[in-house]
């Protein structure tokens, strides 16, 4: 049997996360492909015995943030930034769809919410993956969940896109 590369078994999880992050299948798989290519090139930088999954998601996080930044012409990336919800954002439209509502969250909150709620990362792993303190993980998680809950039950309207 040909030994599978240890990264290979993570592909389904990378795809799931990327899809939730970007919503579009092609865009998500592009991101996974970029991640795999980079991770394979840089595999020697991963220290054996440390968490491979956190490392891979960290590679994906950095690629994704760079992509978003370049699309936004270096707009500052902070918790107040929102990305557009495509062409579906008619005025007064109540967005109930989960994946659409996710996109209405600031990227930072969306990442934390997905890593914890979907990928079952521990809070420490999220902090490690995103390179942020654990207190920031907790506050983003709390704000992200509350905002998503509001979006899903219709009590919160998605903010108009800011500076995009």
């Amino acid at each position, binding site marked *: *049997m*040909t*030994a*599978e*590369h*240890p*990264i*290979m*078994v*993570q*592909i*389904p*999880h990378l*795809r*799931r996360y990327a*899809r*939730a992050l970007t919503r579009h299948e092609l865009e998500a*798989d592009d991101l*996974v*492909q970029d991640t*795999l*290519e980079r991770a*394979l*090139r840089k*595999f*020697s930088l991963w220290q*054996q*015995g*440390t*968490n*491979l*999954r*956190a490392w891979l998601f960290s590679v994906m996080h950095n690629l994704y943030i760079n992509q978003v930044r370049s699309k936004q012409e270096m707009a500052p990336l902070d918790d107040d930034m929102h990305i557009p919800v495509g062409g579906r954002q008619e005025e007064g439209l109540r967005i*109930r*769809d*989960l*994946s659409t509502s996710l996109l209405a969250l600031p990227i930072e909150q969306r990442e934390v*919410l*997905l890593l*914890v*709620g*979907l*990928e*079952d*990362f*521990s*809070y420490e*792993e999220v902090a490690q993956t995103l390179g942020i303190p654990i207190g920031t993980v*907790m506050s983003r*998680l*709390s704000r992200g*969940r*509350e905002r*998503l*809950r509001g979006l*899903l*039950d*219709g009590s919160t309207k998605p903010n108009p896109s800011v500076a995009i």
Partner: protein
Amino acid sequence: MNKFSITEADLQAYVDNRLSDARRGEVEAYLAAHPDDARRLVGYFHINDDLHDHFDPILSEKIPDRLLACFDTPAESAPQSSRISFASVRARLRDLIKRGGRALGILVPASPVGGWRPASFALTVAWLSLGVALGWQMQLALPHNDMPPMVRHAAVAYATYASEVAHPVEIQASNEDHLEAWLSKRLGMSLQAPKLETVGFALMGGRLLAGTQGPAAQFMYEDGVGRRLTLYVKTQEMGHDKSRSFEFAREKEVNAFYWIEDGTGYVLSGNLGRADLLKVAEAAHRQMDSLHEMKVNPKKSVSGRPRVVVI
């Protein structure tokens, strides 16, 4: 109890089942007195479930060729072994528990996102007990000592499928050749279900178990009074000794004997007493071992009685 020391981080950790039993009890007492927070957390539980309902199907999609093609020209070779992270074990377990829980009716199924409201405090309480139930289940996932992760995976898979009435196995024993050929192909090793009739157990069939660290096979057996056992087999049981002699483990009501032979891990799990289970485990071990010896070293004699180590 210090009700006022409950923080927002505690509430989030409650949703994610990351609290100790003691702390969970304190949070529940707090929630009982703070219905607004309880309602809010119900919404968060719902979000977690909904995320899985929404995106988990992607896990079983066929991986696009272009992604697999990234591995065709490896820049660097894969390492000989990699540690299995607790988080990935937990992720596997969560998938298993979720699937198994549904079959057993443990988990509350998803309800539509839009317009969902907690109808009453009773419903809130139901959701909170779900958290407790999940918390209990997740104890299975807590790491302790140096037990290989496969043991817990196997024990949870046993608990999930051995109690299954409608579909305990994916492929029936009546189709044993196909079962063995299929599992052999998926595991990348020649695999035969041991014959355990001499110790009172007949093969029911088997299934493939999904895991983020590669597939595993599960054979299920039943005796005359309906007691069930599973033999779990997984290749490339990494991060541990290449071979490991017979050891005993206990997870809640599930007893297990496990061993590792040249990187292939075996776990025999069941609700049997230890002595009874040992008899079956020895029979299974003997057969797997002799098969293995024949393949690897036809001249070498089969090794002796396995050492039993209590952990």
